[in-house]
C-alpha cells in the first residue's frame, strides 16, 4: 500500500506525534517500506511561516491547551497553567529546541549502581548501556549533522559565547567550546548554514537547525509510505479482547472523531501527553490505563535540574545576536559526589529577547531592582544550567479530577517538587555560573529560576523488569507487545545532557526492532 491510507487499513503502524521521537521513527520505518500514519495534534507550519517575534511565535507553536500544576516548584506559582514550554505543531518541539546534541555518559545509563541508594529517589539502571547506544548515536549524529562529529566543524562563537569562554578560561575549565549542535555550520543535507539570526526557539527561518519538520518528515513522505495528518489529536488507544491494541480514536481539524485502525501504535506525544493518553485509554480490561500494570505510567516525571545565570557588564554584549545556545562548559557534568550531590550539569549559553527576558528573568518581580536589570539588557550575557534531576515517584503527570479539555477528556496535572539533590546541584551551578561571569568583570549577576519545562522526561520509563517500569529496552510496553513508547518519556533517568540526541538514537534503534519483529511475524 502507499499513502494516503484508509481509516480501516489495519496494516499501518500509527505513530502519535511528529517530533524528535515520532518524526524520526516514522521516517525510519517508512524507509524500510513499512506503512506509516503519523497523527500530529498540531498544525503544519513550514519554516517560512516562522516568525522572529517571541510572543507571536509562542502563540503559533506552543502547546497551549489547558494544563494544571501542583507541588512546590516555582513554575506552579508563576505559570500555573504552563508547566512546559513545548510545541503543538508538525515537527513537535524540534521546531523550538536549541540544537544541543550530546551523548549520555557511560555511568548515566547505570545510575542506581553508580550513585547507590538515594533517599526519596526512585533510581533505576537503564536496561541498555552506552555500548548498546553507540551505533545509534553514530547514526543520529550523522542524520542530524551534529557539529564536532562526522568531520563537521563547530559553529563560530558569538558575543555571548566569547564572554562564557573568557570566564571559563579564567576559572580553569578545560571543556568549553561552541558545542555539539544539530545546526549546520556548513551547507549540508540540502539546508543552509547558520545565519546567526538568533530566535532559535521561535523556529529557524533558514532551516539551518535540524527539525523533523523539514528533514525526517518530507524524506518519509517521499517514500510514499508515510502519511502525516496534522491537527489530529489522539484521544484514545483501543484494544481487542486479547489485549492487543487495534487502533486509535482521534479528533480531526473540525473536532470530528475518527478511528484509524493499526497493526501497532507508537506513542510519542512528549512526557505529559504520552502518559495522559495511556491513562485516558483505560478500559474494563485495563482499568488503570494501558501498559500500567506497574503503576508507573505518569510517575517519575523529570524536567532536568535547570536554572539560568544572567550577568550585567559595564560594556555592551548584545547576547541576542546569533545562535541561542552558542557554547557550553562541560567540566561540571562529571560524577563527583565531593561537590555535595550526585550527577552533573552542563552550562550552556542562552539568550532571550527583551519580551521574554521581562517575563522570565525573575517571574513576578517588579520595581527598580527588576527594571534596572532590564535597562542593562544589551550589556547582559546569559547561560542555562541543565543537570540530572532525581526521579521521584511522587513527581507525576496525573489526570485532573474535574477539568476537561475541548474533547471532554481530563486535562493533565503536572506535580513537581525538587529533590534535595536537585537543590544542592542548582545552588552549586548558580555559584559556578556567577563565578564565570565575575571572572570577566560582571557588575551584577542573577540566579534565575527554572522556566516552564522544556525537557520533559521519564513518565513511561524503561526497565528490565515489568514491575519497575512501563517499557522494555526497545520502548515496547511490557504489557502490550504492539504498543510502543517512542519519546523522552521512556527515559529511565535523565542524565545531565539535553535529551533530543538520545530520543533520536532510541527512535532509530526502535525502528530496527519493530521492522525485525514484523519480519518475524511477531508483530
Amino acid at each position: 500500500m502507499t499513502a494516503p491510507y484508509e481509516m480501516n487499513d489495519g496494516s499501518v503502524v500509527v505513530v502519535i506525534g511528529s517530533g524528535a521521537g515520532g518524526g524520526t521513527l516514522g521516517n525510519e520505518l517508512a524507509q524500510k517500506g513499512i506503512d506509516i500514519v503519523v497523527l500530529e495534534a498540531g498544525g503544519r507550519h513550514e519554516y517560512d511561516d516562522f516568525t522572529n517575534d517571541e510572543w507571536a511565535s509562542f502563540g503559533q507553536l506552543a502547546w497551549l491547551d489547558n494544563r494544571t500544576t501542583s507541588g512546590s516548584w516555582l513554575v506552579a506559582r508563576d505559570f500555573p497553567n504552563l508547566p512546559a514550554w513545548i510545541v503543538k505543531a508538525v515537527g513537535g518541539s524540534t521546531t523550538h529546541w536549541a540544537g544541543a546534541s550530546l551523548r549520555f555518559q557511560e555511568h548515566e545509563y547505570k545510575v542506581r549502581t553508580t550513585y547507590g541508594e538515594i533517599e526519596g529517589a526512585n533510581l533505576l539502571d537503564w536496561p541498555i548501556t552506552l555500548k548498546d547506544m553507540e551505533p545509534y548515536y553514530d547514526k543520529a549524529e550523522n542524520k542530524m549533522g551534529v557539529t564536532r562529529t562526522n568531520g563537521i566543524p563547530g559553529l563560530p562563537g558569538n558575543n555571548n559565547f566569547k564572554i562564557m569562554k573568557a570566564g571559563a578560561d579564567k576559572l580553569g575549565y578545560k571543556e568549553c567550546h561552541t558545542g555539539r549542535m544539530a545546526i549546520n555550520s556548513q551547507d549540508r543535507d540540502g539546508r543552509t548554514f547558520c545565519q546567526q539570526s538568533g530566535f532559535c526557539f521561535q523556529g529557524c527561518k533558514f532551516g539551518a537547525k535540524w527539525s523533523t519538520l523539514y528533514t525526517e518528515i518530507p524524506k518519509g513522505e517521499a517514500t510514499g509510505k508515510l502519511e502525516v495528518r496534522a491537527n489530529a489529536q489522539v484521544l484514545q488507544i483501543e484494544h481487542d479482547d486479547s489485549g492487543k491494541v487495534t487502533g486509535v480514536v482521534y479528533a480531526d481539524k473540525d473536532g470530528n472523531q475518527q478511528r484509524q485502525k493499526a497493526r501497532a501504535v507508537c506513542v510519542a506525544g512528549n512526557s505529559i501527553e504520552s502518559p495522559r493518553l495511556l491513562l485516558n485509554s483505560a478500559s474494563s480490561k485495563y482499568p488503570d490505563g494501558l501498559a500500567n500494570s506497574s503503576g508507573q505510567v505518569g510517575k517519575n516525571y523529570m524536567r532536568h535540574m535547570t536554572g539560568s545565570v544572567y550577568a550585567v557588564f559595564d560594556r555592551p554584549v548584545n547576547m541576542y545576536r546569533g545562535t541561542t545556545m552558542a557554547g557550553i562548559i562541560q567540566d561540571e557534568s562529571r560524577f563527583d559526589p565531593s561537590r555535595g550531590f550526585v550527577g552533573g550539569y552542563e552550562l550552556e549559553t542562552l539568550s532571550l529577547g527583551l519580551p521574554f527576558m521581562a517575563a522570565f528573568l525573575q517571574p513576578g518581580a517588579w520595581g527598580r531592582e527588576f527594571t534596572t536589570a532590564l535597562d542593562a539588557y544589551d550589556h547582559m550575557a546569559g547561560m542555562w544550567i541543565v543537570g540530572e534531576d532525581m526521579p521521584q515517584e511522587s513527581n507525576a503527570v496525573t489526570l485532573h479530577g474535574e477539568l476537561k479539555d475541548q474533547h471532554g477528556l481530563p486535562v493533565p496535572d503536572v506535580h513537581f517538587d525538587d529533590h534535595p539533590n536537585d537543590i544542592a546541584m542548582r545552588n552549586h551551578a548558580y555559584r559556578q555560573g556567577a563565578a564565570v561571569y565575575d571572572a570577566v568583570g560582571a557588575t551584577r549577576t542573577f540566579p534565575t529560576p527554572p522556566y516552564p519545562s522544556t525537557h520533559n522526561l521519564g513518565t513511561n520509563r524503561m526497565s528490565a523488569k515489568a514491575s519497575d517500569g512501563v517499557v522494555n529496552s526497545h520502548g515496547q510496553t511490557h504489557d502490550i507487545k504492539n504498543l510502543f513508547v517512542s519519546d523522552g518519556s521512556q527515559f529511565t533517568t535523565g542524565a545531565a545532557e539535553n535529551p533530543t540526541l538520545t530520543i533520536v538514537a532510541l527512535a532509530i534503534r526502535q525502528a530496527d526492532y519493530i521492522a525485525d519483529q514484523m519480519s518475524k511475524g511477531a508483530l
Partner: protein
Amino acid sequence: MRTVDKRQKLSRRGFLAASGGAAVGVALVTSAGVVSSPSGAWAMEVKALKPETMATLIQFARDIYPHDQIADRYYAKAVKGHDETAMKDAKHKAMIEEGIADLDRRAEAAGSTQGYRGMGWEAERAALLREISSTAFFQAIRGGLVVSLYNQKEIWPLFGFEGASADKGGYIERGFDDIDWV
C-alpha cells in the same frame, strides 16, 4: 562593535510634541472621557473607566516597571486594554475601579492630599504597592503589563534590542561576534 542607537527617533514635530510627555506622569491631565499629557503630545480616550482611574493606572504601571527612558504614552498603551475589557466585563471594571480607589485611600492614610498620584516620591508609592502586591488586583495589572509593555516594538531600541533579524539576513554580517573587550 556595532551598538544600537538608543535615542528616541521621532519626527521634529513629534519630538517637540513629545518632549513634555517624557516627564514623570504625576501631572497627567484628565477631562471628560480623556487622559492626556500636560503638553498635549498625546491623548487617550477612556470609555468605561473614569479618566482619573486611567490616569492613576498609568502612574501605577510606571511604578511597577519604572523605566525613565520610556515616555508615558507607552505605559498608557500598555494599560489601555483594561478599559477595553471593562467595557465588556462589569466585574473587571469593578476590580479596577475598586483597586485604584483603594490605592487612593491608602495614599491619603499615608498623608497625601491628592491620592496616589499626588505622592511626590516613587519610594512612597512603591511602599503602597508592596502592601497590595499579593492582591488579585495587583497581580492582574502586573501580569498583563509584563507582556503589554515589553512587547511594544517601539520601545525595544531603548533597551538595545533589535527585534527580528531574519529579514535582514541574520547577524552573520551584522555583529554576532563583534565584541571587542574580552
